């Protein structure tokens, strides 16, 4: 009967659905990166023992460099990046060269801002993105370096370095880019091209030429796979071969120079960098050496007591080298003579029974023991003495208070 046939088919299709469900469900538990993490675990166990191996990362790892808006999951497979003793381990477990990490910590830079690739991805092919159709920021590593026969296979990465280091004359570790910058200066590119606001108008403005879309280049005279990097290489080696109507001379660049220049121009892109990522940017209000010396003198010199007791906030003691920023009260170098003039009592009495603002200050903010008050008097006497000596040497008008 039809009903039985229907029921049979329901069971068959249901079984199929169950199979598909199980297949989809179980593949979740066997992602590529688990194999890499297992391999890492074994490596650490072998080299450093079981206890260390327990510290090996498990699960998806992610670095979120917020200010650069990058989310990189490379460390899911590249687990050895921060480990000591793995400098010659096989990839992907090899430790990252330390020196550069000191200036470019992974937590602040991520990985792809320097190396390229698709940080969001969690499997190798899509993360490295060297052949992906719809991600045009491939890993600038050995594979591409090999394809373009770059002498230093890993040099392509310098393109990304130059996004931040664009305005350095030279930067350590960026040999190709440095060479490129050298050539730009030496060969007079600015005679025809505007670069960073300076230059001629015979050729196009190259300031952000790295942003030009691959589709905007003319590959009709190029052989092989059409790529922007390839176009630049060919163009630098012989401009007329790529652009018939050009007036750009043939500089006779060899391969290395052409590669250096191609890498340089591809690094000329818009980069919205937070200030802290700009090399050499001063973020702190740093004191000058003179200001530092003065500070040191105030804290260790003859007037150090007045700094410790915070008198200097309102009062200068000029002859002891104490300069107040606010100068709310009078210069205490004069106090020995000034107090009797103002209040009609000697300094000692004033200190014992202050009036006005000082009565508030000395009863609430600055508490002086009798010994300290004695120290104050002694020091102010010395200060006054110095003042008098100064005045005999170079008579001055009584300072306004």
């Amino acid at each position, binding site marked *: 009967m*039809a*009903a039985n046939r*229907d*029921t049979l*088919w*329901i069971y068959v*299709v*249901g079984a*199929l*659905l169950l199979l*598909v*469900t199980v*297949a*989809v469900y179980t593949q*979740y538990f066997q992602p590529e990166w688990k194999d890499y993490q297992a391999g890492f675990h074994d490596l650490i166990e072998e080299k450093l023992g079981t206890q260390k191996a327990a510290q090996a990362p498990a699960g*998806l790892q992610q670095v979120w460099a917020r200010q650069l808006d990058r*989310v990189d*999951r490379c460390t899911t497979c590249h687990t050895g990046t921060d480990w000591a003793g793995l400098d010659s381990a096989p990839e992907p477990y090899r430790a990252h060269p330390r020196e550069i990490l000191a200036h470019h910590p992974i937590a602040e830079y991520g990985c792809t801002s320097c190396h390229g690739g698709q940080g*969001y*991805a*969690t499997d190798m092919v*899509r993360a490295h993105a*060297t052949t992906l*159709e*719809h*991600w*045009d*920021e*491939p890993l*600038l590593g050995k594979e*591409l370096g090999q*394809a*373009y026969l770059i002498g230093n296979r890993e040099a*392509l990465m310098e393109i990304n370095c130059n996004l931040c280091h664009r305005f350095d004359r030279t930067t350590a570790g960026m040999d190709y880019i440095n060479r490129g910058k050298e050539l730009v200066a030496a060969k007079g590119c600015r005679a025809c091209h505007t670069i960073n606001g300076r230059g001629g108008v015979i050729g196009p403005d190259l300031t952000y030429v790295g942003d030009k*879309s*691959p*589709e905007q*280049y003319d*590959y009709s005279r190029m052989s092989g*796979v*059409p*790529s*922007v*990097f390839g176009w630049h290489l060919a163009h630098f080696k012989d401009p007329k071969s790529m652009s018939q109507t050009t007036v750009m001379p043939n500089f006779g660049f060899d391969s290395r120079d052409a590669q250096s220049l191609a890498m340089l121009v*591809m690094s000329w892109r818009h980069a919205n960098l937070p200030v802290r990522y700009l090399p050499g940017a001063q973020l702190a209000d740093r004191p000058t050496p003179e200001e530092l010396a003065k500070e040191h003198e105030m804290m260790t010199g003859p007037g150090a007591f007045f700094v410790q007791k915070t008198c200097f906030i309102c009062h200068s003691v000029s002859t002891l080298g104490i300069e107040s920023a606010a100068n709310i009260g009078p210069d205490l170098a004069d106090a020995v003579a000034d107090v009797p003039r103002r209040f009609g009592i000697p300094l000692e009495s004033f200190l014992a029974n202050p009036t006005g603002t000082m009565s508030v200050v000395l009863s609430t903010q600055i508490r002086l023991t009798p010994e300290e008050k004695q120290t104050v008097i002694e020091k102010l006497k010395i200060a006054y003495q110095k003042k008098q000596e100064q005045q005999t040497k170079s008579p001055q008008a009584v300072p306004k208070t």
Partner: protein
Amino acid sequence: MQIRTAWEKVTWSWNPRGEREAGDSIVRNLLLHWFPAKVSLPSLSFRYSLWLGTVAATLFFLLTVTGVALMFLYVPSVERAYLSVKDIEFVTSYGWFIRGVHRIAAHLMVAVVVLHMVRAFLTGAFKNGFGNVQNRPLNWIIGVVMLLITLFLSFTGYLLPWDQLAYWAVTVGTNIARAAPVVGEGVRYVLLGGHQIEQSALLRFYVLHCFFLPVLLLGLFAWHMWRIRKDGGLACMDQMILTSPEEAPASAGQKTYALLGITAGRTASVEMSAPGDEQHEVAGSPNLTRRILLVALVTVVVCAVLAVLVAAPLEQAADPMVTPNPAKAPWYFLWLQELVTDTTVKLGDFTINGALIGGVLVPGLLMLLLAAWPYFDRSSPLATGLWFARERRTQNLLFLGIFVLVLALTAVGTFMRGPSWNFYWPWEAWPDIPRNF
């Protein structure tokens, strides 16, 4: 009443024993009261309707379930949409699968709804039969509107990933819409919430896609099914009156149809109904429900398998400054884009406005013709619910001709238009897409 176990108490209506229980199950189960108590055998046949309507409804259900799941993960903001989809693909557990099923079901739904319409046309299901108060032309119009909403649903969803494919497909689509006379610019402005495809467009499309259009479609679906019941069932029912007129029972004249007889007056099913007439009818529960379950399961399996085999694309992040070459509309609008190309003809200094002719007037006219066809149809009720009825041969051929033309235009747009919209024969290679490295 027989003593029942707890299990039987819960499940009896889905597997009723005997006629009495079968009838009872329809009135006493919330979900089942939706269905007819009795279904004719021809209506249940796979060969008649191909069950395309059920497939479409199942796809809609799948889309709703996967869609709601995606709503927890996707962010409809220009800055974050693309990245949220990347996260769905790479990080969310089974995110790739949910998204894959959603996409496959969406494309399938457009195709199945179109095929359902083709079936309805070729079987003359938009025609009234012999019943008193049938209004199948109205149901046909409801169906056409549902088709347009389905297309619009797919179109609004297409934009959401905010990648190059999405952005430029919507650019093409809205620019064609702009060519409509008088209202074109205004419609585009309202759709996009501005002049550019930006945050307001994304948010609008998102709200339309997730709320208004599905709710509208659901409402129309309810009306569509209601009309089926009021019209006495599927159109093939009206053929039954021709095969068994002598079986009209004597009691038919005295019966009143106030409660279960939703139809006012007598329809084909009423005319030929007789108690226990198993030759022509079976109980809705479980026969109809069982078949619906089977069709639904097959649909789900097909979607699941396709989602595993075919990855959902995600191109580069949308870049208004860089137009991909070629920039194509979604496949169900490619026939329009191709038509626009073909009607943009240069005559000396003057260029015919292909966007207007091919993009607005021709499809607009076709849609109007489609919706109004039941009123132009001159065939008799004898051709209702019959595949390739002789009487309707001309109109069927005309319809199929236009349909094949649309398919051909779609094929040309998909396979034979390459970079710069140049024409490439299927055996001609397209030039390599240039890359940075």
